[in-house]
């Protein structure tokens, strides 16, 4: 699931500027908290589903995002139901679900390099204290790229160890995973230098 943080596509959402999408997400998030209204949150939830369909991500994407978030959403709702009643429970639950869907949607339709550029742009003011925004942008893009790599290296290692009769040891997984990815990081640094 985490491997497809970004899903390529050609929808209008895909083509919209990253900065606008991130700003929109932040604005909706803040808005829903400042105006705690159940109908508004329900509308946001419905809009999120509509946008997912419009981006061509399909109901599977929505179902998967919601399934991952379901325990948290239910728990937040249950706590509210206990302390504050059903209306609050519905508000908290729906609002959280809507925000999670929207966050997943923005991530899925925005190229990591575009997010990296936006972050680099946002951080321009930090130049005066010696931060290089393009380097930060690079770090960001690399982090997103590493997530599926880490997952697949972990899968390779788990398999190699199962073959040695080891089924579940976090230590035995973590050590080779760390060593292998550190070595990989060294080489990637070289490759980046070679292309800049």
């Amino acid at each position, binding site marked *: 699931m*985490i491997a497809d943080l970004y899903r390529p596509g050609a929808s209008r959402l895909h083509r919209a500027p990253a900065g606008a999408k991130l700003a929109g997400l932040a604005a909706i998030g803040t808005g829903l908290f400042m105006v705690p209204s159940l109908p508004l949150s329900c509308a946001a939830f419905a809009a999120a589903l509509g946008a997912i369909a419009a981006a061509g991500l399909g109901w599977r994407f929505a179902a998967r995002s919601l399934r991952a978030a379901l325990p948290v959403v239910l728990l937040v709702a249950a706590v509210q139901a206990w302390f504050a009643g059903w209306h609050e429970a519905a508000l908290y639950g729906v609002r959280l679900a809507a*925000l999670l869907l929207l966050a997943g949607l923005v991530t899925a339709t925005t190229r990591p390099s575009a997010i990296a550029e936006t972050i680099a742009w946002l951080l321009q003011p930090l130049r005066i204290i010696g931060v290089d925004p393009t380097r*930060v942008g690079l770090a960001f893009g690399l982090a997103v790229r590493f997530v599926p790599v880490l997952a697949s290296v972990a899968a390779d290692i788990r398999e190699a160890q199962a073959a040695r009769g080891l089924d579940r040891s976090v230590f035995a997984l973590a050590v080779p995973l760390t060593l292998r990815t550190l070595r990989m990081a060294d080489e990637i*640094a070289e490759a980046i230098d070679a292309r800049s």
Partner: protein
Amino acid sequence: MSTRDIVFIALFAALMAVLGTFPALQVPLINVPITAQSLGVMLAGGILGARRGTLAILLFIVIVLAGLPLLSGGRGGLAVLAGPTVGFFLGWLPAAFVTGALTERFMPKLNFVTAFLAAVAGGIAVLYACGIPGISLVTGTPLLTAAKGSLAFIPGDLVKAGLAAAIIVTVSKAYPLIETRTARRAG
């Protein structure tokens, strides 16, 4: 900062994201999850050292606040800052820093015990000192109740600190990142 540092920082930010996919358990009273990500915080400090470790966590925090759903349960976005976990979430920064700084101090003679102390000092003492006030600030729970609720994390976090210490010691023998740095500075 070299390209190499940047890649290491990105790598551990990615590790945090991967650890966030492990199933997390919500602690009811205070509404904060038991998560594998606190292990990532200890590892970032203990393997990369204070500076790079803290920056790795900072990168991860920025990514989450930018909206990527990388906290356990697929959470992300600015809403995190208004949630009960905010103290822990931001406390990851000093936690990684302290674990890293102590590991660097112990470095040429780092062993399981000292690595464990570094992980506990940063990943438990400093982290809880940020996290518990965070809970009561956001939810209005009395500090004492928040502290009691957080006791539920202690067993898990001790196990994580032990695991982190074992990993940090082993990795530092096989791929000494921190040592190289100090050695270079000296030489």
